[in-house]
């Protein structure tokens, strides 16, 4: 792909864990809008660290990361994180109802008063993720792990990000939840978003996708 078309571009990115243990070495790749990439590799190979760097929860030791042809440092961190949204491996539910969890990001300054979705919109979004039986007033803490992961995904989609970073979203899920999350990832790419999905298994239902493998901190692209 031509670098000018890339939405996300990494150039020779390296990163050390605390204690100067090298985790990522010279990682370079570019992803365009609408592209779906499946990132796999052995545990401890640096997959989560890579997503954290792109979400700017950590700073690379060397190299540079670009979003929309500008270095990440050009964006205010909250703005960047809303646009390049990260779904962590373990879903985090805040105290309160499913509805308040979904609306939480709209209370932040970075939301700039963007219109809060109404209940009907939220319920429709939950239905689409197979959570039709979950009420907005229900306590989020009482959901199953699979349900929490899907509520967390719904919360991320409400930000309308341009890129989605999904960190092993399906590893702990039952087959049904897994399929729904993977289907959503494929649909999001089809809708023009860049999707970087970390998983041990390839997502089902993807027509075209890039295959990236991260092993001992070195990235390879599989044919």
């Amino acid at each position, binding site marked *: 792909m031509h670098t000018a078309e890339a939405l996300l571009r990494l150039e020779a990115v390296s990163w050390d864990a605390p204690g100067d243990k090298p985790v990522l070495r010279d990682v370079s790749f570019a992803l365009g809008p609408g592209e779906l990439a499946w990132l796999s590799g052995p545990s401890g190979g640096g997959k989560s660290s890579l997503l954290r760097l792109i979400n700017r929860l950590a700073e690379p030791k060397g190299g540079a990361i670009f979003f929309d042809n500008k270095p990440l440092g050009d964006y205010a961190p909250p703005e960047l*994180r*809303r646009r390049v949204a*990260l779904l962590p491996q373990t879903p*985090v539910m805040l105290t309160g109802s499913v509805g308040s969890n979904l609306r939480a990001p709209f209370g*932040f300054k970075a939301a700039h008063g963007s219109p809060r979705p109404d209940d009907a919109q939220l319920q429709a979004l939950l239905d689409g993720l197979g959570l039709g039986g979950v009420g907005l007033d229900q306590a989020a803490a009482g959901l199953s792990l699979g349900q929490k992961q899907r509520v967390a995904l719904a919360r*991320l989609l409400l*930000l309308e990000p341009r890129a989605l970073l999904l960190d092993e979203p399906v590893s702990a899920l039952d087959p049904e939840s897994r399929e729904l999350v993977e289907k959503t990832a494929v649909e999001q790419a089809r809708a023009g978003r860049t999707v970087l999905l970390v998983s041990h298994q390839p997502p089902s239902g993807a027509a075209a996708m890039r295959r990236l493998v991260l092993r001992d901190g070195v990235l390879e692209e599989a044919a």
Partner: protein
Amino acid sequence: MSGAVPIGWPQLALALGFVLLAGGASLWLKLGLGRDLIVGTVRTFAQLVLMGYVLLYIFALSWPWLVVGVFAGMIFFAARIVAGRVKGKGVPVFWPVFFSMLLSYMVVSFLVTGVVVQAEPWWEPRYFLPLGGMVVGNSMNAMALSLERLFGEMKNRRDEVEALLSLGADPAEATGSIFADSVRAGMIPSINSMMGVGLVFIPGMMTGQILAGADPLVAIKYQIVVMLMLVGSTTVGSVLAVSLARRRMFTPAAQLRPLG
């Protein structure tokens, strides 16, 4: 009434009997506290006698900068104790603690001596140092509790804080509930002591004034001022210390630093 009955040195020596009692218990029950009891007793005598003479000297000189300097010295040692409680946890907090103590305790002590008690001048050492010392001593614990809670919660709830950052929260938004929990942890003891004062315990300052022959009503008024000023100083001190320490926990790019 003409002041307290003076205690002579021989009578003071008699009070050592209490320590001998404790020492005997330590020997008998093999508590291993003998050394600490001796050191503690010597330090109590030495530090308080020294402080007594220093106070006599300061009262006599009545230099404002000396008064403020002694006060800053007390705060320096308090800040060291507080910072020591969260030492080695990734973010050094001595200076934030020192400055938040200096600022909040100066303001509270000034308001109490200058505005409430109306001492003339406001830094009159006879009022400023004992009242200020009480502010420092009591709020020091509040600050330590607040910071311990802050560091503990940030470590335990790291995933939550980072998830909120990822959703577009700034560091203050991502740590709003941790901030509130931490400040609350610092404030609760001084609120509890307002509940218990006079019922569960008679505060040392009031006891001292009454023993020294003051009108109990005057002593009570002073004690009420002290209780209220402690609530104020623990609040301001905890809010400032937690804000400054929290700021240091994040990089300029709103990343949560590793915490030990």
